[in-house]
């Protein structure tokens, strides 16, 4: 539980590690699209981090091939390639499963799922999982928390941005410039969680 709150608030992937900022800025013009992308990201993140954990522990880490009589094989340099493969495959599978069992949700998320594949928040989540040596249970919680935190950030940001249409902004700052300044302010308020403790 503590890890969940930490990954949602204190170590928010978007606002304190800058992961997935490209998508964050590009897909936050409208509240509805941000909501769709946020939900898609929670889905993919929560599934892909534990799956990557299993792959890494069973296939890649040094000594993982012990049972096959190959104790010296260390494949951990392949982690980048295999994680990307896993993420792309997961997105594809999730998309097909949704289409088959939950068509309304599939229609709603449709175009956002492929976008999630190239989002660095997902790959970053998996790499953090390896670097911080989380266990399987921890990586499940971390994946879910990271996804929720990212979704929270983009939904809030999109809501602010919709209000922004009615404000008078200096010419050079319009669009991208002001978006950065607002993200900075949001990030500042999330930093308060890291200093003052989670709610």
């Amino acid at each position: 539980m503590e890890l969940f709150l930490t990954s949602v608030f204190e170590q928010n992937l978007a606002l304190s590690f800058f992961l997935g900022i490209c998508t964050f800025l590009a897909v936050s013009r409208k509240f509805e699209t941000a909501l769709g992308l946020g939900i898609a990201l929670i889905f993919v993140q929560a599934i892909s981090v534990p799956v990557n954990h299993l792959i890494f522990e069973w296939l890649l880490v040094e000594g993982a091939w012990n049972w096959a009589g190959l104790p010296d094989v260390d494949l951990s340099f392949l982690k980048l390639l295999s994680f990307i493969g896993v993420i792309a495959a997961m997105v594809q599978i999730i998309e097909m499963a949704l289409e088959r069992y939950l068509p309304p949700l599939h229609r709603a998320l449709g175009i956002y799922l492929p976008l999630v594949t190239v989002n660095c928040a997902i790959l970053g989540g998996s790499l953090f999982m390896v670097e911080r040596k989380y266990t399987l249970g921890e990586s499940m919680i971390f994946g879910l928390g990271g996804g929720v935190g990212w979704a929270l950030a983009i939904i809030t940001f999109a809501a602010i941005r919709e209000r922004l249409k009615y404000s008078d902004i200096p010419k050079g700052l319009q669009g991208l410039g002001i978006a950065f300044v607002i993200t900075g302010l949001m990030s500042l308020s999330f930093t308060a969680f890291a200093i003052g403790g989670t709610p």
Partner: protein
Amino acid sequence: MKQSLNYLTDPLVKANPVALHILGICSALAVTTSLSTALTMAGALTVVLVLSSVTISSIRNHIPTSIRLIVQITIIASLVIVMDMLLRAFAFEMSKKLSIFVGLIVTNCLVLGRAEAFARQNPVWPSLLDALGNGLGYSLILLIVGAVRELFGAGALLGYQVFPLVENGGWFEPLRLMQLAPSAFFILGLLIWIIRSWRPEQVEEPEFSILSQNDARHP
């Protein structure tokens, strides 16, 4: 000759990949707490970008369109793995500081973006120049943000003390905020403002224009 020079110089300010196209921002912000990490990251990305563009453009006629993304990502990922190992071997301290962000070059939209938008359709030489130009444009932004953050956050540049700190009997009180995440967003936002005031053609059109009361009365 003029044309090929343009490939190199355009992405520096006129079509800067970070400031105009919002490509590759994730890493641009995360590694800029000090100038030396920014410098390493900029170097690593430029090398990966140039090599991947050259590779992809030299085999561009042999990649079937339907699987081109997978091929491109595999090429980029392999180069990044090599880069990561090189950093680990020769600059271990630095690679610890950069933590996962070297690996994240793979999903840096800048690398895939240039492969997709340019190297896929152009011969080797222009692709090389284009990649180099974009790498330098990216580096430029990284270095500016990194320099500002280190200078005001720690009073130093590349580890050398520029402003004498209060705790050492000097006059400079370091701004801790500069070392935290939010300042990176602010600095980049202001940087974009500066670039766009200098080059007004980059300004985005607002979706609505705000009418003053007089305009509303006399449309």
